[in-house]
């Protein structure tokens, strides 16, 4: 079925080497006018390099061809790319928090104009026109820093529309949106498509890719696996194409028989974040906590870890009521927390792998004079690297040099070595590749079998149903259901999350 629409962008034979490493190899890409095209691939598959070539930030190796609406280029520079209508909505949105909504939308009025003066009337007109076009309203006078993340994202989209985007590249646009906000975003994207604007949607959330995309291009190890119509794919097949292997979840076999409640939460409430949360967690159990983003999962986890004092309700650890003044109190009671954001909360990226590993267990490497014993420190750290199979160039290299999966292993290792009774994992497999995911699942399962109680927070119903003994569903700040393993299928859980 050939539709009568023309190409907006054609890439042919794009190569890019970084000092001998082939980041991209013979990649072709076609984007039609008014098409929603998705780009998927694991970390390091070349997605971001490809985007940088399209936006003119990096030059491809000679020999390739870039064609925008019939005009050929060997490479692009940022200005040309921009003037041709290729705009990026970055993951961090790249907005100016101190400027008004209108100015953010019409920022190119400042940059592109030759005259030195600001035409305020025009700035408000532009903002007004673009927002009307999208059928949304945000007070144009308000400062962007006062908006919610979802509204900020709309401002970023408005900004690229204002400067006449023909191809809008959205880089992980849904990573901090609630499910309702994602729906709103998608309806806006479909609307843009109907007006002939092309969209390149980059995401690692395959459900969303399969929902919004018309065609999907898969990259793997810098090579293009292929471009597929949505109808040709399902999640399983897409995963296979991305990773070259089936993500066969080894379903967790039954855990320990004798279950002792170790954490008990009663009517825990923090207004505006979560309400009347009650549950029990047993040692040796993996309890999944799933729900749409924005449901209050992370806020709840932080309260259990002593970093977000609740307004009311009670927490019991091993039968004794506790009240945490800080996360140090929680740690003393045997709670560990692997945070949501590995790069900013989980690791001190600039410092060595060794120091990141021992930061939680300094007490153990102090000698009789309360001084750090280097030998013990090295021994402990090396043992952890071995035990958790962390691949690193050395103990003294900065943590930022590690791959995502190995970084996450460092975070897990530093908490597991505190010998916690309760381990809270907040999105432990987010943004890491399949092989690393599997080893993390195995590790968590092993920990539970050793008697640790695990609270496993996740977005993905597939990993929760495969790995957890029980699953709690949280929606709109409340726990709305608890299911035993095998009591609920992946599809059913997915449906309940969405409804």
């Amino acid at each position, binding site marked *: 079925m050939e539709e009568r629409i023309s190409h907006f962008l054609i890439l042919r034979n794009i190569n890019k080497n970084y000092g001998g490493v082939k980041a991209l190899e013979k990649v072709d890409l076609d984007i039609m006018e008014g098409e929603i095209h998705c780009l998927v691939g694991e970390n390091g598959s070349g997605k971001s390099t490809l985007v940088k070539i399209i936006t003119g930030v990096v030059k491809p190796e000679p020999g390739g061809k870039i064609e925008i609406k019939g005009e050929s280029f060997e490479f692009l520079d*940022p*200005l040309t790319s*921009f003037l041709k209508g290729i705009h*990026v909505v*970055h993951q*961090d*949105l*790249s*907005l*100016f*928090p*101190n*400027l*008004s909504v209108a*100015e953010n939308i019409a*920022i*190119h009025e*400042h*940059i592109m*104009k030759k*005259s*030195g*003066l*600001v035409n*305020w009337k025009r700035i408000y007109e532009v903002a007004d026109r673009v927002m009307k076009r999208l059928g949304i309203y*945000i*007070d144009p*006078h*308000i400062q962007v820093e*006062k*908006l*919610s*993340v979802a*509204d900020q994202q709309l401002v970023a989209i408005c900004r690229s529309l204002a400067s006449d985007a023909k191809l809008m590249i959205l880089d992980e646009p849904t990573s901090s949106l609630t499910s309702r906000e994602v729906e709103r975003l998608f309806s806006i994207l479909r609307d843009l498509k109907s007006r002939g604007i092309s969209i390149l949607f980059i995401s690692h959330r395959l459900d969303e890719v399969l929902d919004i995309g018309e065609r999907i291009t898969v990259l793997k190890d810098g090579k293009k696996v292929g471009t597929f119509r949505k109808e040709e794919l399902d999640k399983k097949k897409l995963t296979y194409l991305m990773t070259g292997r089936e993500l066969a979840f080894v379903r967790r076999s039954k855990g320990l028989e004798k279950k002792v409640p170790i954490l008990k939460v009663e009517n825990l409430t923090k*207004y*505006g*974040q979560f309400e009347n949360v009650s549950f029990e967690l047993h040692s040796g159990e993996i309890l999944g906590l799933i729900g749409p983003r*924005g449901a*209050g999962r992370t*806020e709840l986890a932080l309260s259990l870890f002593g970093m977000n004092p609740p307004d009311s309700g009670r927490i019991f650890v091993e039968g004794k009521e506790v009240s945490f003044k800080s996360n140090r109190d929680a740690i003393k009671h045997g709670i560990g927390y692997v945070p949501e954001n590995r790069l900013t909360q989980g690791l001190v990226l600039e410092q060595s792998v060794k120091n990141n590993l021992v930061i939680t267990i300094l007490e153990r490497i102090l000698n009789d004079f309360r001084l750090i014993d280097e030998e013990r420190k090295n021994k402990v750290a090396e043992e952890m690297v071995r035990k958790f199979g962390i691949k690193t160039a050395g103990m003294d290299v900065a943590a930022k040099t590690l791959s995502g999966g190995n970084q996450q292993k460092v975070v897990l290792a530093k908490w597991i070595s505190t010998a916690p009774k309760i381990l809270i994992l907040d999105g432990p497999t987010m943004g890491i590749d399949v092989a690393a995911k599997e080893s993390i699942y195995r590790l968590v399962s092993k920990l539970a079998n050793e008697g640790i109680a695990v609270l496993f927070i996740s977005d993905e119903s597939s990993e929760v149903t495969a790995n957890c003994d029980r699953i709690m569903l949280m929606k709109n*700040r409340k726990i709305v259901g608890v299911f035993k393993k095998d009591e609920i299928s992946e599809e059913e859980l997915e449906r309940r999350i969405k409804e």
Partner: protein
Amino acid sequence: MMRKSRWKIYNQTEFYLFIVLIVLSTILAFVNPKFLRLENIFDLLRNYTFLGILALGQLVVLISGGIDVSFTAIATVSQYIMGVIISKYYIDNILVALAIPIPIGIALGLVNALLVYYTRVHPVIITISTLNVFYGFLMFITSGRWIYKFPPSFRNFVQIKILSFTSAKGTPYGLSILTLFWIIVAVMTWFILKHTNIGRKIYAVGGNLEAARRAGINIFRTYIFVYCYMGGLAGLASFVQAQLAQIIQPNAIVGKELDVLAAAILGGASVFGGSGTVPGAILGVLLIAIIKNGLVLMRIPAYWHQVVMGAIIAGAASVTALQMKFKSRRMVRKNVD
């Protein structure tokens, strides 16, 4: 989601500053009725023009996310060169005198801009260094000699008044022409920040440097504008200071950098960049002026002035920090709604 109008005036630093200013003035007026006399107010405005102009320059640098502590050295160097030229060649033309320090200031500002942009080191460290380089070499070359033989036009200029009155005792007083400089610079700075593209780019760069770069804003040019503007105003301010003092002492200005920074920060400019307004910078200077004047009127020894200033800076910074803490706590809640 609440949508607030921009006209919520009591949300703004300037409003609080204004209230503090009124309250302090009232107290001072009770303590010493002299304070509210037009004569005293005009004197105050004239004497603080120097500080006022510099605070406006610093404001622009702070908004861009930078900071400049070398402006006192820039002022000293440009003032000294002006003094040497007009006294040596006895140039009896005030416009020429005025035209000398400004380009020198701009040139030295350019040095700062280039170093800040090129080295990517925090501007505090860069400008502490240039402060020492500029000032050190000037003192080395001049050995700190004073200049005081000025042509008549230079001596008489300071006497010019825009508004003239006669006091009850028969002595004339009025609004000094120097204060007019402050007013002009204030209007100019306000216009640049609010109504020119470079002004908005300065806010953008200070608000989010990376986003500014991605949006295609020329960071280099923005830095050049910002530091040269500060330098040019330092040159102008040095002219004003020389007029008031009628003597050029190379050690008269260096050491005032903290007063200027304090005024700009009191006026709501953030050291993290992106925020600050012209009315705030003016109110900040006036607040410092009134406090210092008040201390004099209350016959508190000069030694105490620094104690009070330091306490005010620490206090104002604490209030701002606590406000930010409270705000971020509220933001968490709002985002979740």
